[in-house]
């Protein structure tokens, strides 16, 4: 079983139980798992017989994404934790756990209209992603958390029975993980047992990925996969983001100066030893800066020297953001869970002191290992 060390805190007066179930690629199609989470979400909104609200405002949501060479089907249950107000609900937590289990068993309403709406919603999301070169490149790379490529005809032809089979597969998976944030309880949270940890899954990207061309793109991007010093703790994560943010700022200003072009940069961690950085430009402008970008790596510590202090300052503000934003805390817990990082409550809420020298050292170890582009092409449709 894998329950990642829970984050016990009363700061948010909320608790979240996240059940992440791993499903092998061979067991389920992209279309089925994505539509399944859409239908499960809709069921919670409209047709669930039990009023979740009566259990301290419980809310459940579902999502699916690429993960560890397969998919994660994620269910998230959040609830308020009313201090000193137990008269209001006798044992909301126990009830919540039962509800969570029950939802997986009950599934979704066998209603064709609901299915049609959910197909529309999913395709609507997919269409939006198809306009974004960055999202398409992430799909192509099949990195963790990316939105899988969909075949529109397969989505359209999916039946309720297909989805019922999908749910059965998800339910029977033995690989998974729980993430918990909330007040400390006398009894530990015990759910269904999972036999394999998610952190042992192969986190990587598809090395066979090819540049993506599409006439739907509203922007263009160049993504670089970089090898990094192994991330072993939260301080390493902070240093990495400080380094990349400083680099992003330096690059932004250089491109503005040399090409009078505004660019957007995004940073993401693929595995404890690989990260990605994406430079996004307006549609039709990638060609103009392509060569310049290709020559930029590896990162030169001196090139970003002026920007490190500001980046360290921004990272310090993370502790204020974290303590004010429950969703952000959930994201940080998921990162901890992904790479089985050790942490204490103190480390979770505070960013350790980072020096300029440490950042420079981090930068000097970064090496480009792969590049992929997402370009607009009038003639090609993805």
């Amino acid at each position, binding site marked *: 079983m894998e329950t990642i060390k829970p984050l016990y805190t*009363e700061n948010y007066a909320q608790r979240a139980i996240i059940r992440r179930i791993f499903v092998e690629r061979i067991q389920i199609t992209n279309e089925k798992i994505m539509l399944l989470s859409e239908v499960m979400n809709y069921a919670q909104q409209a*047709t669930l017989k039990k009023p979740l609200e009566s259990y301290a405002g419980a809310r459940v949501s579902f999502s699916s994404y690429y993960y560890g060479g397969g998919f994660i089907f994620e269910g998230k249950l959040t609830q308020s934790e009313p201090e000193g107000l137990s008269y*209001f609900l006798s044992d909301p937590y126990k009830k919540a756990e039962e509800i969570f289990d029950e939802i997986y068993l009950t599934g979704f309403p066998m209603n064709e209209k609901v299915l049609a*709406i959910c197909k529309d919603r999913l395709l609507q999301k997919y269409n939006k992603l198809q306009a974004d070169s960055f999202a398409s490149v992430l799909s192509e790379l099949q990195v963790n958390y990316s939105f899988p490529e969909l075949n529109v005809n397969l989505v359209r032809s999916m039946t309720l029975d297909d989805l019922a089979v999908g749910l059965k597969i998800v339910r029977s998976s033995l690989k998974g993980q729980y993430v918990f944030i909330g007040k400390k309880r006398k009894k530990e949270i015990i759910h269904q047992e999972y036999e394999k940890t998610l952190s042992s899954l192969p986190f990587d990207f598809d090395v066979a990925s090819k540049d993506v061309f599409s006439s739907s793109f509203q922007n263009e991007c160049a993504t670089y996969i970089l090898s990094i010093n192994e991330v072993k703790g939260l301080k390493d994560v902070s240093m990495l983001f400080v380094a990349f943010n400083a680099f992003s700022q330096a690059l932004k200003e250089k491109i503005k100066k040399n090409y009078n072009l505004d660019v957007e940069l995004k940073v993401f961690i693929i595995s404890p030893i690989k990260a990605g950085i994406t430079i996004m430009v307006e549609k039709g402008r990638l060609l103009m800066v392509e060569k310049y970008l290709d020559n930029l790596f590896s990162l030169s510590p001196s090139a970003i020297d002026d920007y490190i202090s500001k980046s360290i300052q921004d990272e310090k*503000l993370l502790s204020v953001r974290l303590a*004010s934003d429950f969703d952000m805390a959930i994201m940080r817990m998921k990162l901890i869970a992904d790479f089985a990082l050790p942490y204490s409550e103190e480390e979770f809420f505070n960013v350790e002191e980072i020096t300029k020298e440490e950042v420079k050292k981090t930068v000097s170890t970064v090496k480009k290992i792969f590049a992929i582009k997402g370009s607009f092409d009038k003639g090609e449709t993805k």
Partner: protein
Amino acid sequence: MIKTDLSKLSAPFYEQKLDNGLNIVFIPRKSLVSSSLIYIPNGSFIHDETINSGKVFAGTSYLLKEMLMNSQCQESLSQQLALADSFIDYSYTAFSISCKGDIFAPTKSFLSRILSPKFTENDLDEFKKKNMASMQKNESSPIYQTKQGCLSNLYFSSPISNDRIPSLSQLQLIHNSSLSRFMEKYYQAPSMTVFLSGNMSVSEVSQKINELKAPSRLTCAGKQLSYHENYEKAKENYTAIKGKSDSNYLSFGIKFQKREKLYETYGQLLFSFYEVLIPALITKNEIFLSGLSQIGADLVDCDFRQGGEDACILLTFRTLESTKLVSFLTDYFTVCEKKTNAAELKKIQEQYYASAISSLALAPSALTQFARVYPDSLAFTGLVGNVMRLSYTNLKSFLSEMDGFVKSACFLRKEL
């Protein structure tokens, strides 16, 4: 400081008026962060035609907010390890600051910007230039166009039909002098409130609040904006427009009766209705949601607006065609009182309560909630108590009145 404890939420608050007229509200919380929120009692809803002989344009309050809490200001506050942000609604403007240490230092820094504003006409031009593309994008979005179309149908002259964020054309009319005049009238100590929250003692706060400075009272000449809204009918019942979009959209609006009239009938209960109305009738109503799924329509935006004497509900749907949806909505909202029941209300009250507990746990969200209901002269904790005591009979009588409220729709047909 005067203590008030209005509910069983374990969230008492303390109030004090300083010698300069500045109102202080302190809500002690065990949150890891401390926060302050500077509240200005004027938002996107225009109340003035002129201030000190200068015309007041829609969007002035928004632009002023952007100038005061610009990136330079946020950057300087971040040096003090404080996160700063600003937001605007129809009735108020708010500037929020959060940090893990002493909240008074960054709050004083920001108040000093209000005391001596540093922006120039060039800064305004720069802002307009920088935001032009994103504003154009927003204005060309099908949801925005459909909503604006519906508001134009619904209202004859009320400023509530303006968006919270001004349009590009409105923005171009505003200059530095307009902002200065607006500041003189609304950014003065007696009309401002500073909310504070965090793990601080009352004695600590009552000592430090005297260091907070704000502009003194100034007498401003001017003319109030007067408008005549017809609450018995809509300007247009239905219009259809065309727009570049991947889907068809429909916005359906409900124009509430004049606030003064509703308040005469329901008193403070009115604001409790407003808290539960949207989940009770729309977002958590199974009859409504399953009705939509039968038609194949999808609710994509739900907006409840309140400002001046006006309030409205604006619902936007993605839909294949409009006729069936408009008939469904018209039928549904002409018998509102039959669409929910006592058990459903209880569910909604429970969820509302749970969400209030979560909001009150964190200093920044506690202040956001207090500011949100402050224009109605209410304390959030008091409102939560009122909502929890709300009876279905009272809600039903308001819903019956809602049946007669004016409705209108705008349909945007996709143009490929």
